[in-house]
C-alpha cells in the first residue's frame, strides 16, 4: 500500500471521537493544513492501546497549519505555524 499523501499536499483533518484511544486532538480536527513530511508507516496506537497488534500500520504525516487558521484571535500579521503528527486514516484531501 502506498502513502496516500506527499509533502505539499493540502489536507483536512477528520472530525471524530471514536471510543477508546486516539491521538488526534480536538483543536486540530476539521482544520486544513499542508503535508510537511511523511514519517513512514507506524503501528496504529488505537489498536495497540486495546492490546491489539497495531495492524494495519498507518502512514504517519507531519502536517503544518497556519496558527491564524487554527485560532480566531491569533494576530493576522504573524506567520506562526503549528505542526503535529497525524495518522493517514485521520486525513482527507482538502
Amino acid at each position, binding site marked *: 500500500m502506498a502513502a496516500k499523501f506527499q509533502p505539499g499536499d493540502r489536507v483536512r483533518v477528520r472530525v471524530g471521537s471514536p471510543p477508546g484511544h486516539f491521538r488526534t486532538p*480536538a*483543536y486540530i480536527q476539521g482544520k486544513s493544513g499542508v503535508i510537511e513530511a511523511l514519517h513512514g508507516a507506524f503501528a496504529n496506537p488505537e489498536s*495497540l*492501546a*486495546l*492490546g491489539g497488534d497495531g495492524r494495519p500500520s498507518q502512514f504517519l504525516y507531519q502536517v503544518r497549519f497556519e496558527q491564524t487558521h487554527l485560532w480566531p484571535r491569533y494576530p493576522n500579521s504573524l506567520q506562526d505555524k503549528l505542526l503535529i503528527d497525524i495518522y493517514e486514516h485521520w486525513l482527507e484531501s482538502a
Partner: protein
Amino acid sequence: MQRRVHDRGGWPDAGPIDRVEHVYTMWERQTDAIRGVLGGKGLLRTDELRRAIESIEPCRYEQLRYYERWLVAIEALLIEKGLLTREEIDRKMEEWVTCRS
C-alpha cells in the same frame, strides 16, 4: 463535540505556568521504573498506559498529580490483564501499614 479531559490543547481558562520543579519522591521513581520494566517485558505498552490514564474520571484526572495518574492507570491495567487482583493489592497495603505501625 465532547472534548476529553486529557485533550488539553487550547483548553480554555488555562492560567500561568508554575515553573517550580519538585524533587521526585521514591515512590514516583518506583512507579516510573515499574512502567519501564513492565514495558521492556512487553507486559505494558505506552499506548495502553495512555488509554488507561485517559479513562480516569475527568474530575479526578485534573486533581491527581502526574505520577498518581500513572499509578492508578498501572494498577488498573495490571488488574485488567489478570496479573494482580485488587484484593491482593489491598491486602498487601494493609500488611505494609501493619508492619510499620
